[in-house]
């Protein structure tokens, strides 16, 4: 996270490769399901043997016996509808919810976040020298309308995407944060409104950041979790 600060995000998970290295983020949407980005997962069909989800810690490199750390292998990946860039990861077993591990709410179907809503991103990704990425960082972002976003991106923003305001000082998601949440506080709960996807440049000053709009795909998420 560029321009963020150390923080707490109990639904943000770390995806670990077979050597235990962090490579992407994700969001815990059900005890046995994590939502992440297609760009993070090398196959929709082949088993992701050896890949794990780590939760319950803010440290990127937790000690082996660290209290509250939960490590759960990924059982399978289900890729989202065309254009969604979403992947649901089914975990081998449900995680245990506590103060350090919590579910994030899913938005109502087709819900549009009002412009000006304050949201936050979280991750262990690159900070481009603005801080260190050894602990989880969060940064606040303000949602803007697709109409406003499209003035900058010349009409390329689709309804399945959501934008946040570009600031003069670089603030935003970066390498290693992909797949993680854009969480917005609505009705006394943190709701997963966006999913961090690669933009052309991290935290480009004055340019809005683009996320996948989760509410457009909530029906698919619920269908997969119900049927699988």
């Amino acid at each position, binding site marked *: 996270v560029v321009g963020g600060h150390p923080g*707490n995000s109990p639904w943000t998970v770390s995806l670990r490769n077979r050597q235990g290295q962090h490579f992407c983020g994700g969001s815990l949407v059900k005890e046995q399901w994590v939502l992440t980005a297609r760009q993070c997962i090398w196959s929709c*069909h082949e088993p992701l*043997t*050896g890949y794990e989800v780590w939760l319950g810690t803010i440290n990127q490199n937790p000690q082996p016996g660290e209290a509250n750390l939960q490590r759960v292998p990924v059982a399978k990946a289900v890729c989202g509808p*065309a254009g969604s860039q979403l992947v649901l990861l089914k975990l081998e077993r449900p995680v245990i919810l506590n103060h350090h591990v919590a579910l994030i709410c899913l938005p109502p179907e087709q819900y*549009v976040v009002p412009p000006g809503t304050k949201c936050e991103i979280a991750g262990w990704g690159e900070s481009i020298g603005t801080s260190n990425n050894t602990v989880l960082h969060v940064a606040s972002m303000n949602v803007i309308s697709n109409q406003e976003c499209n003035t900058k991106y010349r009409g390329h923003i689709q309804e399945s995407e959501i934008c946040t305001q570009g600031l003069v000082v670089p603030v935003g998601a970066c*390498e290693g944060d992909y797949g993680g949440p854009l969480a917005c506080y*609505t009705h006394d709960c943190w*709701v997963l409104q966006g999913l961090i996807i690669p933009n052309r440049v991290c935290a480009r000053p004055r340019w809005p950041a683009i996320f996948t709009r989760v509410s457009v795909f909530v*029906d698919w998420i619920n269908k997969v979790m119900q049927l699988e």
Partner: protein
Amino acid sequence: QRSPLNDFQLFRGTELRNLLHTAVPGPWQEDVADAEECARRCGPLLDCRAFHYNMSSHGCQLLPWTQHSLHTQLYHSSLCHLFQKKDYVRTCIMDNGVSYRGTVARTAGGLPCQAWSRRFPNDHKYTPTPKNGLEENFCRNPDGDPRGPWCYTTNRSVRFQSCGIKTCREAVCVLCNGEDYRGEVDVTESGRECQRWDLQHPHSHPFQPEKFLDKDLKDNYCRNPDGSERPWCYTTDPNVEREFCDLPSCGPNLPPTVKGSKSQRRNKGKALNCFRGKGEDYRGTTNTTSAGVPCQRWDAQSPHQHRFVPEKYACKDLRENFCRNPDGSEAPWCFTSRPGLRMAFCHQIPRCTEELVPEGCYHGSGEQYRGSVSKTRKGVQCQHWSSETPHKPQFTPTSAPQAGLEANFCRNPDGDSHGPWCYTLDPDILFDYCALQRCDDDQPPSILDPPDQVVFEKCGKRVDKSNKLR
């Protein structure tokens, strides 16, 4: 520090049965600590050639036969691992093959071997014993012949001949950096014996075979699971963690079949504007990380020193400062030009679409689609709506008679906003969307306004310590 298991080849989840009623395996021994203990018991016994290890009861059963013995058959087992002595199952020889106990029974010139117990047509001095292994008419090397195992032939005019069994080192050559090497050499270039990949001693390591299924981390054979320059292994010497193995390169003069298949595979897999899988075949010219940081040239050692020298990775196309994946990472990556950031992925390169060209179109959400497309967007065949295998459907022609669930055609019985779908014939993919697109003249409905009342349950709450402190 060597493990007694080093003398055995492991077949996971396998049982070896002898189909002859008269052949009886050893009794189950339930007082063993682990598979190493079984290996320690079986190793010195001349009549023990293999053993079963029961994973749940931690018992072992010694066997006087191997999979190459007569009347034996391998079976899948959820309880047992099968360990067989390498000398009996390896198809190549180590050193001069004195310990070879395989079943090759023909000479290099194609002559059948004479049984060691016979003195005709060629008389000789050898008497078969369990110790010298002069069994049947199999090639053996009882006199330490430097040319390897041999036998007396059944041809009176050719008394004996070498069997031409290759050494394990010569048997398989290394292509490129040897990621595909599946040979059976188990010593390093300095002669140290390799540590088994499934053991964590004397060196603990991340390359557990069950996590790296595609890398074939079998027994203690040399492999290259991490994109090293050559195949390597952890050693059984506690003071030397890992070493390269001395293996011959296939070189530029590859046999035509190998050459053809490899280059064909490479050309087919070449990706220029997008990447597939982990992007090991990406050959495009993107040269910045997804954070926008320019990449360091692969042939430079500054600002970051590294091992990926282009000349040593000829098959990886480490040109200029282009993003590549020479080590099997998650995606194409590069060393960056920023001293404080060693390497980063180039996740901004899009993934190549794996989707078929749509074979038809639908209006709205496709609930009225009644066409005959029966393939998913990835090309997987649809399951019949009335079938219960491989997936038990929630929607059937009986439960949703209005949905037109005919044959295995794509339909949308639940009004899925992402279009017609079907259950698939792939047991691992329950359902997927179909090779269809929304019709050109059909405008997708715009996103609706937010509902008035939203109530969430048991989610989205956290303990905010910082707020409390403040």
